């Protein structure tokens, strides 16, 4: 079977379809570690962590912030289902920074009614958005 030459990448959130493009390479923030996908990849099903999705077409790289999703990889197709996905270009850095500060403050205050899990998730989300919007990859998860 000849290998396919490109991948059809789809990024879907419950609120919209963010990406539907033909690309050459995809790098996914898998929950077990980052993984690169080229055309002809073996079928794979994986959960995704919070992180950065990179896809490349020719020399053109695009970045998308992704949180809590999973991906289905087929030889000529990658479908990503994420609860949150946002293009780097679309990220409002000021808002992301504000969200980060808010989450930090909530975590620091330790008020009785603070929902820690939620605040932490918000913090992580804000940080990843900031990183993605800067075009640098996320730091290695500790």
């Amino acid at each position, binding site marked *: 079977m000849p290998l396919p030459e490109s991948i059809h990448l789809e990024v879907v959130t419950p609120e919209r*379809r963010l990406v539907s493009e033909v690309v050459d390479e995809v790098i996914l923030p898998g929950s077990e570690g980052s993984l690169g996908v080229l055309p002809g990849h073996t079928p794979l*099903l*994986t*959960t995704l962590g919070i992180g950065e999705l990179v896809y490349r077409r020719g020399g053109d790289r695009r970045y998308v912030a992704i949180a*809590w999703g999973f991906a289905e990889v087929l030889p000529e197709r990658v*479908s990503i289902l994420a*609860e949150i996905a946002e293009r780097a270009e679309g990220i409002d850095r000021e808002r992301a920074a504000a969200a980060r500060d808010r989450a930090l403050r909530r975590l620091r205050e330790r008020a009785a009614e603070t929902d820690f899990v939620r605040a932490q998730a918000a913090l992580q989300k804000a940080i990843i958005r900031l990183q993605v919007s800067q075009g640098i990859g996320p730091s290695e998860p500790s």
Partner: protein
Amino acid sequence: MANVRDYRTRIRSVKSTQQITRAMKLVSASKLRRAQDLILAARPYARKMLEVLSSLAARAHPDRHPLLQRRPEEKVLVVVVTADKGLCGSFNTNIVNGARAFLDELLGRSGSTAGPRPTHQVQVDIVGRKARDWFRRRDYPVRRVLVDLFRDVTLEDARDIASNLIEGFSGGEFDGVHLVYNEFKSVMQQRVVRETLLPIPRATFGPGAFTASAGAQPEDYIYEPDQEALFAALLPKHVMIQVHRVLLESAAAEYGARMTAMENATRNAGEMIDSLTLQMNKIRQASITKEILEVVSGAEALK
């Protein structure tokens, strides 16, 4: 007898009511369009999710997963979804009636002949101000109340509700979760539906998904992490998506119902204005005729 001026005031007031109902209709129409778009936008995700879950269910020993486990339903949670606002025809009444019938059935209160035999332990979760107001005055055990969700249905809300329900279900607080909500059938039609959310009904994953070897599987995946873990990670998401869908449907149905109701109201106001105008003209004519008669008979008398 009412005079012309009284009629004029009436007509003016009906007219301004009509303006309001017309505006509300237009607003509902545009909100409905947005709500419909949201429903459509949510579909690809839900479809893909189901596909993947079905293929996983065929291999991942789904019986073991707690969210799929069916136990005898003794403690039941009913989630009632209404609108926050009124003025949408029988939208809220239908839901409340449907919910009450369901609850009474569970509680063994229905039917005048049977004595009280509490067959189930029931709790109620409420979404929407209208349901809250109704249940506040009645004797049902309300567990959780959520209002003000529908101005902007977000995934966060859905996640919050879903995780709360999952927690209660796996913690043994209840053995089953049922939703009562308005399904968006078409702009003119809403239907009250009763749906089981937890345990996740097996039919969800399509026929054959639970038979030991579901025939030839089209895709043989590498799983990362393994199938069980993946399955376990996806099921709660599935629940969340279901909740999200229900909220979106209910929102769309509400706008549809309001639009129809307001259209009827606008038409009724128009009819009322017509009949009031007719009566007013009759009276005006009658009084003119009377005046002419008086003038003429007065002139006659002077001759």
